């Protein structure tokens, strides 16, 4: 299995992506998965079109990307969190 590169993005790249980034790191280590995590602003995502495997974001993307996009708001509110974690794990394990 190739080590996946996951982008974690929000509008400012300051607040919500910090929380989501840490939660995904925890999730990866709990599942013995190695992944590259890159935290960035949503406007910086276009710089990773060739290298990323997945985008996890709390914000509006408004664009199509060559990789799957998963909404991460659940990490902030806890609502539907198990489902979102499962989706991310499935993408990473592909």
């Amino acid at each position: 299995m190739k080590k996946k590169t996951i982008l974690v993005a929000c509008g400012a790249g300051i607040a919500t992506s910090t929380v989501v980034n840490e939660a995904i790191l925890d999730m990866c280590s709990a599942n013995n998965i190695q992944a590259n995590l890159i935290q960035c602003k949503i406007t910086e995502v276009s710089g990773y079109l060739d290298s990323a495997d997945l985008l996890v974001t709390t914000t509006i993307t408004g664009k199509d990307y060559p990789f799957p996009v998963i909404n991460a708001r659940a990490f902030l509110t806890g609502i539907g969190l198990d489902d979102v974690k499962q989706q991310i794990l499935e993408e990473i394990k592909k």
Partner: protein
Amino acid sequence: MDTVCLEESLIMVDLAGTTNEEVLQNMARNLYEQGVVKESYIDAVIEREKTFPTGLPTLGCSVAIPHTDIEHVNRKAISVAVLKNEVDFGIMGEIGTVTPVKLVFMLAMDQQHAQLKLLQSLMQIFQNEETLNEISREHRKDIIIDLLESKLNH
């Protein structure tokens, strides 16, 4: 230090407003008057909310966490407002949807990718229906600060 001091001057109760812009304007201006942010923060946070809305439906009352880039900030702080009446904010990560917000946590963050513990604790509060509802019904600033500090700086 990854703690933040909640100051009574940054807590607003029964804040009236009919639009989220009015609420943001009021809160940001207060942060500016208290010297926490630069004047440019006011427009920046309003613009940011239009492009990247921060409303969050929770199991309790809906909240919003408006914030903007670190260059507009003098020192790290959180301003909290309990709105007199709920005001619609766009839902984070969605287009064209709104949620009636009762509690606004305006973040003045001075470092990128930092403040992790603080933000995590804040999100824990968002997952605690009881605490959110308690704060939303409270009119005393000191009690709001006690409620939040017991959860934030532990």
